[in-house]
């Protein structure tokens, strides 16, 4: 009963709160006012239900009970663990995934393939950001700047010097790493929030420079007629070219996953994670935190550079408006949703966040609204993300080759 009263009060509060913005629609031409009480009432009802759920979630959280328990026998953690432990299951799962991913372009339309390419590019971006934010704990808000640098490297080098895709791919990565180091160096001593704001500023400065430096970057018009990647000099029509790019991106993502997994499970990865946990203790234990931080920035940014080059090749036309803060925020929310540091989690989160709006067309208007809400809700109820608590496996000689895993 108490709960219902609280929910009712919450509903009333929000109805009053949103009265002007939600309830009033001005018709400027006719100088009239339309009162949209229907929206207010709908909101009230929605908040009432939501408040009940919210309250329930908080009570469970305070009591330490998991909020969402999936139906019996369907424990996500157990499933993942099963995959990790049983070789047969793992190979079978990977085989299935391979079939689906490789066969996709054959059975889907041109439009759907394009969407998958987009999704896979975001997977690359999220994985790259995951190194800096998830593993090393450096909150970077301007990540899309590196994406832009990669894309414009290809676009401009092609426009001015005629360099092709394959030449620009490594150059784009290299240049992005330079910028990554350039950003990392001055921010070495900055704490969490300040670091975030400075990187945000960096992202905006890059975008504004691209937008205003008309003579070099084309300003708001951007760069167009960027050639698609060639396949031994063959010329392809747009469908074949798109399929080709799809396989290219798929290969890139696979390479990204392999390389980043290896980095994470190495001496470098351990140092990054220690940096995230406690910088001062880390330095006291003999880790050169300057070097590790710069490595994080360099390693994280290069993937965005590669993805940027591919993006430019895919869309053949780039302009600064593709590289706004909203993009950075979206990529960040993929890392947050997936679980900081978890590679599988981030991949899944990126795919969900990009593909879901495509298949839930009804909600596409509300996409950004949901993004914001998801970020808040995740922080409140599951800050560790979708997948967390992953353990690296160790073989310890003294235990005669016993293996680690989830405990």
């Amino acid at each position, binding site marked *: 009963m108490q709960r219902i009263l609280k929910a009712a009060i919450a509903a009333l509060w929000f109805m009053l709160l949103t009265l002007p913005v939600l309830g009033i629609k001005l018709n400027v031409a006719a100088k009239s006012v339309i009162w949209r009480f229907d929206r207010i009432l709908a909101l009230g009802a929605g908040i009432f239900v939501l408040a009940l759920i919210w309250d329930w979630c908080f009570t469970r959280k305070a009591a330490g009970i998991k909020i969402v328990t999936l139906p019996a026998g369907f424990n996500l953690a157990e499933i993942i663990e099963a995959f990790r432990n049983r070789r047969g299951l793992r190979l079978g799962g990977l085989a299935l995934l391979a079939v689906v991913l490789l066969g996709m372009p054959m059975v889907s339309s041109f439009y759907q393939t394009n969407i998958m390419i987009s999704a896979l590019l975001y997977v690359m971006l999220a994985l790259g950001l995951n190194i800096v934010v998830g593993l090393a704990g450096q909150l970077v808000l301007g990540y899309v700047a590196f994406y832009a640098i990669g894309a414009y490297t290809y676009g401009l080098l092609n426009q001015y010097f005629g360099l092709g895709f394959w030449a620009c791919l490594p150059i784009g990565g290299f240049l992005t790493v330079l910028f990554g180091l350039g950003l990392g160096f001055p921010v070495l001593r900055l704490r969490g929030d300040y670091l975030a704001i400075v990187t945000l500023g960096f992202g905006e400065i890059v975008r504004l420079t691209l937008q205003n430096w008309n003579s070099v970057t084309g300003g708001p018009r951007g760069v167009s007629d960027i050639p698609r990647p060639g396949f031994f000099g063959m010329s392809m029509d747009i469908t074949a070219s798109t399929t080709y790019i799809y396989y290219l991106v798929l290969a890139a993502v696979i390479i990204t996953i392999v*390389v980043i997994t*290896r*980095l994470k499970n*190495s*001496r*470098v*990865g*351990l*140092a990054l*994670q*220690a940096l995230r*946990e*406690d910088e*001062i*203790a*880390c*330095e*006291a*234990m*003999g*880790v*050169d*935190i300057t070097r590790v931080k710069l*490595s994080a920035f360099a*390693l994280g940014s290069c993937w965005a550079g590669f993805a940027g080059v591919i993006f430019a090749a895919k869309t053949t036309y780039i302009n600064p408006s593709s590289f706004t803060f909203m993009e950075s925020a979206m990529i960040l929310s993929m890392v947050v949703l997936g679980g900081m540091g978890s590679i599988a989690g981030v991949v899944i989160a990126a795919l969900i966040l990009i593909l879901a709006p495509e298949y839930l067309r009804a909600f596409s208007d509300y996409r950004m609204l949901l993004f914001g809400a998801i970020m808040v809700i995740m922080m409140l109820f599951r800050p560790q993300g979708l997948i967390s608590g992953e*353990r*690296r496996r*160790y*073989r*310890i*000689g*003294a*235990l005669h080759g016993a293996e*680690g*895993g989830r*405990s």
Partner: protein
Amino acid sequence: MNPVLEVKDLSQDFGGLRALNELSLTVNQGEIVALIGPNGAGKTTFFNCVTGIYTPTEGQMFLHDAKGEKQLLNGKKPHIITAMGMARTFQNIRLFNEMTVLENVMIGRHCRTKAGIFGAIVRDARTRKEEQDCIDRSYELLELVKLQEFWNETANNLPYGAQRRLEIARAMATEPRMLLLDEPAAGMNPQETNELKELVCHIRDHQQLSILLIEHDMGMVMSLSDRIYVMEYGSCIATGTPAEIRTNPRVIKAYLGESDA
């Protein structure tokens, strides 16, 4: 007597406050030296200066390496000092909370291993061997502090006493010649304190270490240390063996109050 850590006239100012006042201190090879004093005397500040976290206003600090050569510590960054052979634990435990017990110790091995980004990606034989080595040596250190059964446990799940021992294992992983322990027995019950005493002695005897420890537990200090320095308001007011310190009137007045142990 071969000195390992030599500090001369160390002073540290924070704005107008003089936290350390011309402090001189020496730790010789194989000694256990205690640094005692009331809260706020500057003991942890001293540790922070010597390990490079603070830059001292005046004074010089030297660490003698294995060959007996004097190395100046002033102005060097903490990780360099650790690589030179001096490791520490913290007054308020600073473990890597979300990492496992084994991984915490493995971080200590960072300055003694070399594999970089290239090695991590390529995973050649040398990198793999170095990694396995690191894992095995870290496990050995866990056996030393009797935490081996928790090797895969998250660090912040450990009970308090075990966390303190883990910090020691982590510091040991850096292969130090000089170990600084900041209140290792804080919050421990008598049995845990005894075990800690045994551990410290064992480490000193078998690992060729010299130890400087900050401690408030007088029983532990008196029975464990070879020499003691007493601090008050940033200055050293007395130094000597436990027997001498116990009867030093200035010390009694400033700190011990009722005679203890």
